[in-house]
């Protein structure tokens, strides 16, 4: 076997593919062959590395040098200069590095280092090669889990204080406990990889960058609740994620990490990937279950909750991708270690998708409790072009607008609740001083109108009325009462809608009006 001197990682995700990553990869491989370096240098595909808007990104290891906006034309120079002669190609260097590092908190680069638990491997290993995952302590946790009783696994998760990362903020161990204790001959674990929240792609990073971590998490979850079958319900547009997951599942089967009697433990488990139906509401767990059953993606009545009667009316746990990706780390390193990160009520880290007017938009993993200020200024390079911070929409489309007074609030599920805000899916949309709140609100309301499933009256017709009102205001044709109407309708929706989609629309409206009532009012002609 040849000794490989350099690994060249090329980030393959939807963004980079659109920027021409496949062509660059081909050119790179050919150039390496042409220059006679193929014995010494390997080209690997990796998932998204947590930076967007930088074109095709290439990372050269072991140096850890990041190149951005690489084109096919750059390849001959890059190979010759860096790989052959060992000189950096300065013009292609990424100016601001999306620093991502292992839990050791080593410090490099311009930006603050990120503690990486969930994204430990993303962008570092070849996600299509199970051996690379195993080499980084992958699949160790299932062995440890099998040495415990299922109750023991749930106890460990309980001790870790893990809270679901899908948005609802429900303690994972409690959910598992319900399903574990529910009577039933067949139980299911479902991974919610629908990621329908606009501007959110943190789950995709895990799916594309480290699919085995999710698989391992699901095996452990299955073992804990007594499910022998798991489903990954994945957003249909995530074709690369689907491809990678399917490859990973096939490899895991080959290594007998999925299938009958895993690691001689007596526990059998298998996984299927199911493509989502493309509606935002299908991310809601009961609508997701309906959709998995082949029905229309409408939310179900609760109770019964899925943990008691879910898929095909069997006890079912639905967990978010990020939640499940935490599991192997917690089991392998222990709850006490995990509690070393984050806050007392919400231990661990949170993966944020930060977009909008910041210098480095992308994916950030930060400890729970990190302030919005740190996230924007320390991790994301501050506001673009040195402008002033106006507000951020935190928690997704159904999140709250947070103004400057909220910059120093510790962000976790519990604490944000105190401020009538939510962490949600961890989406952060940052707006600078030039941003227009009416435009923003308009796009949020249009999104909700488009995504209302139509089941219940307040949401189906309330969103339609809200859109009418905001369109009127945006066109400077509104009347004074319109502002009141926005809150009235959304309040009625909060009190009477069937599912959280309709109930949560009041949050962006009330928070926007709290900070920017006057700005909205200014749009009303006298």
């Amino acid at each position, binding site marked *: 076997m040849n000794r490989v001197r350099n690994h060249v990682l090329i980030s393959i995700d939807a963004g980079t593919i659109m920027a021409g990553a496949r062509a660059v990869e081909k050119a790179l491989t050919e150039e390496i062959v042409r220059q006679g370096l193929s014995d010494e240098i390997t080209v690997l595909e990796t998932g998204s590395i947590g930076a967007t808007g930088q074109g095709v990104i290439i990372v050269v290891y072991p140096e850890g040098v990041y190149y951005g906006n690489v084109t096919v034309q750059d390849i001959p120079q890059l190979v010759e200069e860096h790989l052959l002669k060992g000189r950096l190609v300065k013009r292609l260097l990424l100016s601001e590095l999306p620093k991502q590092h292992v839990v050791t908190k080593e410090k490099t680069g311009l930006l603050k280092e990120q503690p990486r638990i969930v994204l430990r491997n993303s962008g570092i290993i070849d996600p299509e090669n199970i051996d690379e995952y195993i080499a980084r302590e992958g699949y160790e946790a299932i062995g440890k889990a099998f040495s415990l009783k299922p109750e023991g696994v749930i106890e460990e998760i309980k001790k870790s204080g893990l809270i679901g990362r899908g948005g609802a903020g429900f303690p994972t161990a409690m959910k598992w406990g319900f399903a574990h204790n529910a009577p039933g001959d067949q139980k299911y674990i479902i991974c919610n990889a629908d990621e329908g929240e606009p501007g959110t792609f943190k789950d995709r990073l895990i799916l594309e960058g480290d699919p085995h971590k999710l698989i391992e998490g699901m095996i452990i979850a299955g073992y804990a609740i007594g499910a022998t079958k798991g489903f990954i319900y994945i957003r249909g547009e995530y074709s690369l994620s689907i491809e990678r997951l399917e490859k990973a599942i096939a490899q895991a089967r080959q290594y007998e990490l999925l299938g009958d009697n895993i690691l001689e433990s007596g526990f059998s488990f298998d996984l299927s990937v199911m493509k989502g139906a493309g509606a935002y509401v299908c991310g809601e767990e009961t609508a997701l279950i309906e959709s998995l059953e082949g029905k229309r993606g409408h939310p179900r*009545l609760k109770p019964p909750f899925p943990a008691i009667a879910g898929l095909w009316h069997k006890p079912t746990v639905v967990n978010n991708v990020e939640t499940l990706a935490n599991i192997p780390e917690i089991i392998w390193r222990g709850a006490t270690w995990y509690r070393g990160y984050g806050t007392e009520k919400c231990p661990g880290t949170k993966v944020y998708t930060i977009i909008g007017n910041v210098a480095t938009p992308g994916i950030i993993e930060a400890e729970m409790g990190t302030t919005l200020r740190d996230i924007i200024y320390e991790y994301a390079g501050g506001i673009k072009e040195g402008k002033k911070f106006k507000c951020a929409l935190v928690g997704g489309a159904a999140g709250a607008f947070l103004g400057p007074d909220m910059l120093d609030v510790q962000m976790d599920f519990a604490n944000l609740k105190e401020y009538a805000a939510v962490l949600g899916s961890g989406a952060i949309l940052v707006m600078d001083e030039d941003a227009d709140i009416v435009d923003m609100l308009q796009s949020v309301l249009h999104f909700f109108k488009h*995504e*209302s499933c*139509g089941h*219940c*009256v*307040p949401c189906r*017709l309330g969103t339609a009325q809200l859109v009418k009102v905001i369109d009127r205001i945006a066109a400077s044709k509104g009347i004074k009462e319109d502002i009141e109407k926005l809150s009235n309708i959304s309040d009625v929706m909060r009190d009477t809608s069937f599912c959280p989609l309709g109930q949560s629309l009041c949050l962006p409206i009330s928070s926007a009006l709290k900070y920017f009532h006057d700005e909205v009012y200014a749009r009303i002609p006298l």
Partner: protein
Amino acid sequence: MTKEKKLSITIDNRKVAVKPNITILQAAREHNIYIPSLCTLEPLPSYGACRLCIVEVDGLRGFPTSCTTPVDDGMVVRTDTAEIRTLRQEVLKLLLSEHPASCLFCTEHDECKDYQGTIRKVGVTTGCRYCPNDSLCELQTITEKIGLTETSYPVYYRGFPVEKSDPFYDRDYNLCILCGRCVRVCNDIRMNGTLSFKERGKQTTIGAALDRTHLDAGCEFCGACVSVCPTGALSTKVSKWYGKPDGETKTTCVYCPVGCELLLQIKNNETIDVFPNYDSTIDQGLLCVKGRFAIPEYVASPERLATPQRMTPLGYEDISWDDAIDEAAEKLSGINPEDVLIVVSPQLTNEDLFVAERFARELIGTDQIMSVLITDMREETVSFLNLASASSPFNVIDTADTILTIGFDSTYGFTPIGIKIKKAAKAGVNLTTLSVHESNLDIVSGETFQMNVTKWPALLDSIMGKMPGNGKGTKLKPLNKVVVIGAEVIFSPKRGAVFEKIVEMKDRFGWKVIVAHPYTNLMGLLAMGAFPGIKRGEIVSDGTKSTGPAVEDPLSAMDLARHRKVVYLIGEVPFENLPECDFLIYQNALSVKSTRKPDLVLPSSLFTELSGTIISAEGRILPIRKATDPYGKSMPDWQIISKISEKIKSGALKYSSISAIQTDIKKQVKSLSDVKKRLEFRKISAKTSGKGRTGKRLSDPKSSRKPWEEKYRGIALKDVVSGMLVIEERRRHE
């Protein structure tokens, strides 16, 4: 049964005891506490879409909907606080933002209600009366109850074209409020699946998937969706502009021997519509297209006979009842019994058949009481009767472990049976369907065989061969196997061999049999003895003797090729193979186009216009109740026969009321005295006399056979009910 412990809850400061496992809404309704709701409808599953039934519950966050929240012991519920009232009004306003509301908010509203009880299809001056559902609409009631008198949103008219291309009902989704009742009833109750939601959000609509017509999407035209729709979105074509009915009569459907309960909707002494009765223990409200939609048009057909008529060289002339009775009596008095043929319809009531049978045997002195099933079933008549009289109650399907259907399709008939089978199959019962063409049950069956009838006997042999306990000595296991046989076999020229196999399955292997045949009151006909060789009451089991009558092949006994002096048709039409005769009496409700023109026409009343009973295929005695006055001068069949008898021999068969006949029936047929009890029947077997065939053989069955079609009293429904023509064509194509 252990008595369920009641829970105690408090609703609006009232302490009430309620059953466990019900919702707050159900509890409130049981105690007459009003909570508005548009999407809930028993027995449909809760849906939680209209959000009007919100309440406050101590200890629960926000405003849970009462239709989805189960009661709990000690629960404290408030249904009518100021906050709830406001929220309800706001939600209703949103709902009405896309529902035309001129009938709801109008200054003339009260006057309009009081003085314009009828409906105008075209708007009067205000132009507001364009909804067929006005004064029936639940939206109107709710708006009033919630106290909404104006709305703050302009009404958005969605502009969907009104869908009128399907038979029986129209759809105007501009009036739809997406309560989902129709979708739920179609899928969950009817197990059909024609209707579904399409699109989502504000674009949501209801309809058949892939924009097909309902006909193409497999709709049964059961009209369940129309019955449950709270708005005017779905409406019955024939009755949509009638407005609110002024009366309702519960009766029994006479189109087939299932005997579904019907709620006839009456307005101005006319049957304008028919609703199902979801509380029915017989059919659970699962009417088929015939009961639901084919009655008003039949009873109000322009072909209805209003007066007696006599044939003259110049055509028919109206005559008085006295003249008509005189003429009939004259032709029949003192006649040699051999020279008369009396034909009765198996769709008459027991009372009609009882009087007709006494007329034939006691007055005329003939045993030759003909009915259409003899010419339909021909040489297989006796084995058909053997199977039909051994028919099990339909609920054997509920406990079956194996079900086999033979030539059975329940799209346009026998829906209560079909739906039971679908439910059983969905619950995992082993279902096999055997048919020539596709059956609507194929999609739920475990095994489907589609083949020519000639191959069926062999297949049935192999099914029987698989049975446990077929070998000698092994004890037969208790069996819950049910075979349902339908029109495809009953009307197949090759049915003889199949019938034989089914008799074997029944007698040797203990299969329970359900025969889905079209002869509504066949059991009544046999019980009254209105059949050659069967005596009055003879086949009704009194729980003692098990052997029933042995019958000679009626077709040869009847000798239909022999000329008669008089043929008296009671509720039948001149059919093929009717013997030639000098004088034809036609007693029926609708006029008939036939080559052999009747000499005397006597108008009968129809079942909506009279009282009586029938015996269903399950052996239940079911009531027919009078809902409207007789049409024109028509009279019930028994009354006409009784009047003719009176003329022939005074006092012989004098009946002046239905109850007098019923008293006589009970006297003569003891087992019929307990109306509540399900009847069992004795086995009818073939008499094997060495006599051989006496009459001339009828013409070759194949050449004369028309495809089977739905009939009532000899008249094809498709000729009278416009929508049935479409249905019949559809059935033919399949």
